[in-house]
C-alpha cells in the first residue's frame, strides 16, 4: 500500500515470505503480555508460545482474555507491555495487515464475509494491502482456492455465493482465505460455536490434517471435550493470566475444568490481584465463596411454583446446517417462590434466546410458559410487567437503560403512566424526581443529582438503576440475566445481596449467567444449558464447569 506499510515487514526482518517459521523453535512466542481497556485488565502478564504443526487450544471462561490475547497476535490490539516474537524475531504489529504479511491468519467467531459476493471475491477482499489497479482474474483465484481446498480437504466452489453456503462451508472459506493469504499460523476464535456436532468432528479432522502439513493452529474455545480431541497442547487462561500450559495427553477434562474455574482459593486470589477486579467472575468473590456457600439457600420457605416452563423450543435457527439446530430445545424448568434457580452456560448455547423469550421479546416455536396458573407464553413485556415479572436484561445498555433520559426517569420509565408519576394525559415530574432521589439513596447509586443523564453512569451504577427499577413492589418473578457482568467487586456484592434479599422475601428468581462463581454464590438449584439442552446439575463447581464445557453431558455424566 503506502511505502510505509511496505517497509513494515522488511523492518521486521522478513520479505514477502515472512520470517522463517519452519525452524525448530516455537513459531510464535508471546511474553509478559498485558492489555487493559480502561479500568479492566483483559490480559495480565501472560506468556504463550506456539510450535509448528501443533494445535494449541486456548481455554478459559468468558472474559478470561483469550480473544484479546489472540487479537494482539493478529495485530488488532496493541499490548500495553510485553513482547511478541514471530519466527524468533521481535515484532511490533500495527495492524492485521502486518500480521498477514508475517503469515498469521485469523478466523473470527463472527465471519467477516460479504454474503452477496462469491467465494473468490471474498478471498480477494482480504487480499488488500498491496496496491492493485485491476482486480486479479477471478477465475484464476477461484482455481487457486479450489486447489488449496483440495489439498486440505476443504472443498468449496470458488464461484458460489457466500449466501448459498452453510455456516460450516462459510467457515471453510474463512480458513481458505487465511491460507490463500499465506497463513502458516492460523488463529480460530470459537470455531465450533455455531457448528453442529457432525461439522465439529469434520472441522477437527481437517485441522489435524493442516497441522500435520506444518501449519500452527491456535483454537480459542471453552469446550472441554473438543479440546481433548483436537489439541496437542492446552493453555488455560483465567482472569487474564495463563494459569497453565499442559499437553493434552497429560491432562483430563476434570483437571482442565479445575484450572479454568480455579478451585484453589489461593491461586485465584493471586490471579485476582494480578488481573484487577474488573472482570465479572473470579477475583475477590472467590475468597468469599466458602461463606457464600453457607449463606446460600433461602431463609424463607420455598413456596409454590411461580414460573413453569414446559417443553419450550425456540424459533430461531442456530446455524443453517442440515441438523437444523434450534437455539434451545424442549426446555423444562420450574422456579418456586423464594428460590434462585440458575441457568448456567457459556455464550451461544441458547441462553440469550431463552432470556429473550422469557422477557416477551420473542415468541417460542412451541412449548408453554406459566406464571402461577396463568399461561404467559405469548405475553408482551407490558403484560409481563403488569403481572409482577421483573427483568434484569443481559445487555443493560440496550434493553435496560435509556442514556438520554435522566437517572430519575430511568428508574420509573416502565410505570410512567401510573400514579404517582402520571396518568393518561399527564406526568408529574416532581414525583419522578422524588422517587428517583429515594431510590438513588436506597441503592447507593453514585450520581450527583437525579436529573443527571443516565449515560454518565458507570457500569455498576447503571446496573443499580436497572436493578432498582426491576425490584418493583409487586414483584413475583425476577429474571436476572448476567446481572453482574462487567461489574466491579463492590457492585457485584451489592447486586448479589439484593438478589438474596428478594429471594428471602419470597420472590422467585431465575438467574441466567455465564459466571460460575455467581452460580455457586446464589443458586438454590442449577441447570446447565449446553447446545440448547438443559441439564440439572448438582451445585458443585467442578460438575457445573464440566457441564458448561459439555463434558458432563457427553462424558462423565452430570454427577461427579
Amino acid at each position, binding site marked *: 500500500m503506502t511505502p510505509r506499510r511496505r517497509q513494515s515487514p522488511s523492518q521486521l526482518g522478513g520479505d514477502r515470505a515472512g520470517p522463517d517459521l519452519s525452524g525448530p523453535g516455537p513459531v510464535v512466542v508471546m511474553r509478559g503480555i498485558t492489555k487493559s481497556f480502561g479500568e479492566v485488565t483483559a490480559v495480565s502478564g501472560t506468556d504463550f508460545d506456539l510450535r509448528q504443526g501443533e494445535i494449541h487450544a486456548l481455554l478459559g471462561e468468558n472474559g478470561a482474555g483469550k480473544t484479546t490475547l489472540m487479537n494482539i497476535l493478529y495485530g488488532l490490539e496493541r499490548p500495553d507491555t510485553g513482547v511478541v516474537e514471530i519466527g524468533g524475531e521481535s515484532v511490533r504489529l500495527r495492524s492485521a495487515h502486518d500480521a498477514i504479511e508475517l503469515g498469521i491468519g485469523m478466523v473470527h467467531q463472527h465471519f467477516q464475509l460479504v454474503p452477496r459476493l462469491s467465494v473468490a471475491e471474498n478471498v480477494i477482499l482480504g487480499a488488500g494491502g498491496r496496491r492493485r489497479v485491476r482486480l486479479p482474474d477471478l477465475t484464476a483465484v477461484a482455481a487457486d482456492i479450489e486447489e488449496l481446498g483440495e489439498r486440505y480437504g476443504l472443498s468449496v466452489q470458488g464461484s458460489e455465493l457466500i449466501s448459498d453456503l452453510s455456516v460450516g462451508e462459510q467457515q471453510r472459506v474463512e480458513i481458505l482465505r487465511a491460507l490463500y493469504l499465506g497463513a502458516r499460523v492460523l488463529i480460530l476464535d470459537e470455531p465450533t460455536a455455531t457448528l453442529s456436532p457432525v461439522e465439529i468432528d469434520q472441522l477437527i479432522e481437517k485441522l489435524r490434517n493442516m497441522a500435520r502439513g506444518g501449519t500452527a493452529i491456535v483454537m480459542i474455545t471453552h469446550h472441554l471435550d473438543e479440546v481433548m480431541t483436537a489439541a496437542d497442547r492446552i493453555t488455560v487462561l483465567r482472569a487474564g493470566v495463563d494459569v497453565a500450559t499442559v499437553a493434552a495427553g497429560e491432562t483430563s477434562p476434570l483437571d482442565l475444568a479445575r484450572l479454568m474455574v480455579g478451585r484453589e482459593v489461593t491461586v485465584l486470589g493471586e490471579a485476582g490481584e494480578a488481573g484487577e477486579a474488573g472482570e465479572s467472575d473470579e477475583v475477590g468473590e472467590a475468597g468469599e465463596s466458602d461463606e457464600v456457600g453457607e449463606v446460600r439457600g433461602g431463609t424463607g420457605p420455598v413456596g409454590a411454583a411461580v414460573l413453569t416452563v414446559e417443553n419450550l423450543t425456540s424459533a430461531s435457527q442456530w446455524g443453517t446446517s442440515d441438523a437444523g439446530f434450534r437455539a434451545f430445545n424442549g426446555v423444562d424448568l420450574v422456579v418456586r417462590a423464594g428460590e434462585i434457580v440458575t441457568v448456567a452456560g457459556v455464550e451461544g448455547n441458547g441462553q440469550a434466546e431463552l432470556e429473550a423469550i422469557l422477557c416477551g421479546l420473542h415468541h417460542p416455536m412451541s412449548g408453554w410458559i406459566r406464571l402461577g396458573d396463568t399461561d404467559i407464553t405469548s405475553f408482551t413485556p407490558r403484560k409481563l410487567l403488569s403481572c409482577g415479572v421483573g427483568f434484569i436484561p443481559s445487555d443493560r445498555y*440496550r434493553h435496560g*437503560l*435509556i442514556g*438520554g*433520559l*435522566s437517572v430519575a426517569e430511568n428508574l420509573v420509565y416502565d410505570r410512567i403512566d401510573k400514579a404517582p408519576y402520571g396518568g393518561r394525559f399527564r*406526568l408529574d415530574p*416532581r414525583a419522578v424526581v422524588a422517587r428517583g432521589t429515594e431510590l438513588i439513596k436506597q441503592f447507593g447509586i453514585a450520581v450527583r443529582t437525579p*436529573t443527571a443523564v443516565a*449515560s454518565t453512569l458507570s457500569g455498576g451504577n447503571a446496573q443499580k438503576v436497572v436493578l432498582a427499577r426491576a425490584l418493583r413492589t409487586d414483584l413475583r418473578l425476577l429474571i436476572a440475566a448476567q446481572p453482574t457482568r462487567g461489574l466491579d467487586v463492590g457492585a457485584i456484592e451489592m447486586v448479589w445481596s439484593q438478589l438474596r434479599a428478594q429471594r428471602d422475601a419470597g420472590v422467585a428468581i431465575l438467574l441466567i449467567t455465564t459466571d460460575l462463581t455467581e452460580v455457586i454464590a446464589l443458586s438454590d438449584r442449577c441447570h446447565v444449558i449446553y447446545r440448547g439442552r438443559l441439564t440439572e446439575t448438582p451445585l458443585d463447581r467442578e460438575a457445573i464447569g464440566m457441564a458448561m464445557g459439555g463434558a458432563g453431558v457427553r462424558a462423565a455424566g452430570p454427577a461427579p
Partner: protein
Amino acid sequence: MTGPTGGADVPANDADVYDAPANDAPANDADANGAGAPAIFPARDRRLQLRPLGSAAAAVTAAFGAGGILLALAGANPLQAYADMFSGTFGSRFDFSLVLVEAAPLLLIGLGLIVAFRARVWNIGAEGQLLTGALAGGAFALYAPIGTRAVMIPAACLAGAAAGGVWGWVVGFLRARWNVNEVISSLLLNYVALRGLDYAIRKPLRDPVGFQPVSQTLPEAARLPDIPGLRVHIGLLIGLGLIPIVAYSMRRTPFGFRTEMMGLNRDATEAAGVNTGRLIMGVMMISGALAGVAGVLQVMGPESRLTGNISPGFGFTAIIVALIARLRPTGVLAASVLIGALTLGGDVIQRTQQVPRVLTLVIQALFVLLLLVADKVGRARR
C-alpha cells in the same frame, strides 16, 4: 422545494445530531441545576435549551452570508437584495399576511413532523399526506350537503385529517409489522398520492364545464374566512392553537415521554412494556393527520378548489422547518415564518434584482446543512 431525495438525506443525518447532546450533557449538569432546578424533566429539556438555539441562529446567519455571496455572483447587490426581501415580506401588513399564508401549512406540517422525528421515525411523506388530506377534505367540501361554515369547515378538516392520518398510518404499519424503512415507503407514497389527486381532478372531480383539470370552486360554506385585520385565512389559528397542545403532549404526557424514549432507545422502550409498533403507527398517524389538515386548509383557503398544484412542496419544506426548530414545538412558529418569508422574498428579489428566485431555495438548503455543521462544531468544542 428540496427534491424528494434531498429531503430524504436530511433526517438520516439528523439522527446523529440528536444522538449527540445526550453524551455531552454531563458538562451541563451544573448549569441546569444552578439555573433554579427546572422541575420538568430537565435531562430532556437541557439538551434543547440554549446551545441548540444558538446553533440554529448561527446556521441561519451563516446561510444568509453564503446566500449573499451567491446573490453577488448572480449579479445583485446582496445587501440591497436582503433589504428588498425584508421590506417585501415584513414591510407591510399585506406583505406579512402573504408570509403568514405561506407559513400556515408549514407550521401545521412541521408540528406533525416533530412528533414523528422525536420518535426517530423519519416521515418524508408529509407531502403525500397533505395531498391525500386535500383530496379527501376537498371532495367532502365539494359534495357534503352542509350549508353552514361552522359545521362544514371542522368537518372537512376532520375528513382531511383522517385521510392524511391513514396515509401516514400505512407507513407506520409497514414499519411496525415488517420493518419496512419508513423513509422509503413514505417517500414513495408521495407519488401515489400525487397521481391519485391528479386522476381525481382529471376524471371524477373535474369541473365539467372547466377547461383546466381542476374541480369546481368550493361552495361558500367551505371557504375559509380571513382572520380579522389580516389577509390570512383562519387556518393559521389552527396551527397556532396546536403549538401548546403538541408542546404539552410531548413534555407532559406518557405518550410524549414514550415517544422520546423510543427515539432514544427502541429496544429498551419495548422491554419497558411499551408497544413500540403501536407507537410508531401512532406518531405516523398524527404526523399524517396534521399534514392532511394543512392540505384541506390549502384547498379551502388560498386555492378555493382542488387543483394539481395545491402544494409547492410544503411537505418537504416542512422538514426544514422542523429541523430548524430543533424539533421543538415552540420553535416551529418562528421557523415556518422564516421559511415562508424566504420563499416569498425569493419572488421579491426576482422582481427587484432580476435574480432567480431559486437562490432562496439554495439558502433554505444551506440552513439545514449549516445546522448540521454548527452542531458538530459546537460538540467538538465542548
